[in-house]
């Protein structure tokens, strides 16, 4: 026998309690891991490789205000600009979709791949999309969810705009950061709106990453003091602008995470205190045999750490395993296209477990160290 054997045997002496304690730690850490992952997915949206070259241009007043279509030529002329396409959020409703379905965007069909090049789409489907102005592309997630097939007629009822779109599915793409959206010809929307001469936003592809700051500055300067001033920003900034609309959701998740950790600390501290209090007599025997306060404290700390470690393994490891195997995108109807438990999040979960083991060991260590041999021996079993 050695010290490790002694600690392990002590930790699991009351198997049911140890298992329930570890399980409560595991459930809490699983919840914490889930919350931290959700927070990360909300605040650090995923980016594809082309994101660093893309600039979003919107009306400076607000995203809800459109921009004149005639701006396109001016943007195209700016040095460093490779491609420019309108991108207008249609905001329509497909069938009786409950509102968490998929977004529809009108864009320049010829430039789809040029700007948003990461989509995987068979060339013949892309050709079919380009050739027919009624054609549309749908992401694989939405196509699967709604059982769409190539050639299907897709009607999207207008929400923001006073018109409906009667489209034909020409292709199903996949491999982007969000395989849910529907893309259609902007010209089709123009016609449906009676050639209104407006676009929602401009999306610009810049020739090189080094030119992005200069192109942003030039676009903003070009339309300064016009009737439609613009705000050009990187795709990343544009996405973070959306996230800021979530307001206190991130704060709410932060508070929820803190409550989870605090509750967990109370549970583990209470359990450890109870466990050690029941063994005062044994601790007194150990002291009588010559074990010192430091060694007794180390035993208690090791037991606490083992319970927390088992909980962390189950909770954090289980979370990682679960989210890496299941389709969170499907389970959340696409609200979270990705749900990755990163090494940092797993590390944070394990760190919390270590801190918990320290916190929960402190009160029983203090009690054990204050215990005298004689007082301990008087304790009833």
């Amino acid at each position, binding site marked *: *026998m*050695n*010290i490790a*054997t*002694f600690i392990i*045997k*002590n930790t699991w*002496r009351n198997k049911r309690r140890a298992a329930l304690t570890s399980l409560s730690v595991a459930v809490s850490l699983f919840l914490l891991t889930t919350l931290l992952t959700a927070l990360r997915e909300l605040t650090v949206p995923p980016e594809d490789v082309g994101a660093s070259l893309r600039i979003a241009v919107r009306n400076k007043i607000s995203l809800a205000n459109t921009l004149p279509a005639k701006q396109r030529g001016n943007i195209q002329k700016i040095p460093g600009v490779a491609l420019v396409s309108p991108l207008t959020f249609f905001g329509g409703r497909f069938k009786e979709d409950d509102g968490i379905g998929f977004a529809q965007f009108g864009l320049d069909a010829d430039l789809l791949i040029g700007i948003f090049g990461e989509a995987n789409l068979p060339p013949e489907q892309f050709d079919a999309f380009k050739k027919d102005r009624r054609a549309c592309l749908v992401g694989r997630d939405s196509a699967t969810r709604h059982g769409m097939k190539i050639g299907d007629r897709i009607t999207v009822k207008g929400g923001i705009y006073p018109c409906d779109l009667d489209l034909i599915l020409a292709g199903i793409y996949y491999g982007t950061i969000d395989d849910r959206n529907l893309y259609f010809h902007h010209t089709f929307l123009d016609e449906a709106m009676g050639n209104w001469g407006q676009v929602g936003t401009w999306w610009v592809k810049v020739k090189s990453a080094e030119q992005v700051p200069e192109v942003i500055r030039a676009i903003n300067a070009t339309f300064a003091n016009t009737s439609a001033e613009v705000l050009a920003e990187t795709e990343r900034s544009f996405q973070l602008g959306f996230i800021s609309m979530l307001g206190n959701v991130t704060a709410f998740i932060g508070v929820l995470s803190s409550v989870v950790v605090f509750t967990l600390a109370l549970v583990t501290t209470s359990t450890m205190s109870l466990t050690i209090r029941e063994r005062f*007599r*044994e601790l007194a*025997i*150990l*002291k*009588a*045999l*010559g*074990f*010192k*306060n430091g060694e007794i404290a180390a035993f208690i700390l090791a037991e606490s750490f083992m319970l927390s470690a088992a909980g962390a393994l189950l909770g954090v490891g289980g979370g990682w395993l679960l989210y890496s195997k299941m389709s969170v995108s499907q389970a959340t109807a696409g609200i979270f296209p990705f749900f990755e438990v990163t090494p940092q999040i797993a590390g944070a979960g394990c760190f919390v477990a270590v801190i918990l083991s320290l916190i929960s060991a402190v009160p029983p260590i203090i009690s054990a160290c204050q215990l*005298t*041999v*004689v007082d301990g*021996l008087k304790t009833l*079993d």
Partner: protein
Amino acid sequence: MVSIRDLSKVFYRGGQPVQALDNISLDIPSGEFLVLMGPSGSGKSTLMHLIAGMERATQGTCEVHGVDVAKLDESSLADWRSRNVGFVFQTFNLIPVLTALENVEMPLLLTKLSPARRREMAEAALDLVGLSDRAAHLPKQLSGGQEQRVAIARAIVTDPLLIVADEPTGNLDAHSAQEVLELLQALSHEPGKTIIMVTHDPKAAAYGSRVLHLEKGSLVAC
């Protein structure tokens, strides 16, 4: 071996002082099997605890092999106990999750001995108390007498010069009690070993080489 001079111990219960030991002076030579008797609250257990370094005296000296136990700090006292004292308690006080062999090996974890040597010594101690065949049993799988013999094996495994036994037969039937007392008596015949036993039982006291009576914290003549 044990030299006690003017030893006193005062407890405070509810703020009121209680004189547990009052100016005790006593010499216990090596090899003696000393029995302490007396009514409850007479101070016999307190005296034994002070000699074994489990408690601190309020005043006086208690030298064991030339070391004044009362002057050692907590850490030194723990080291001293691990090297010099073996404990046997009325309620056996074995660690329930450890086997008989592991319980006996427990005090050796404080030494620098190799695991193999520790095991060898624990097996030898168990053999000495006649429980080699129960080495792998947990305390709950042993009878009271066997548990107490395991406790005695744990007390002697480090080969201490002083063994203190607090009512070692209090929870045993007559047959087991006799076995335990014979074992303690045999140990007292080993060179240099001193045994101090607290008991209420005159039959148990008969195994000792000297019997001292305490009453109200003082030694009394019988």
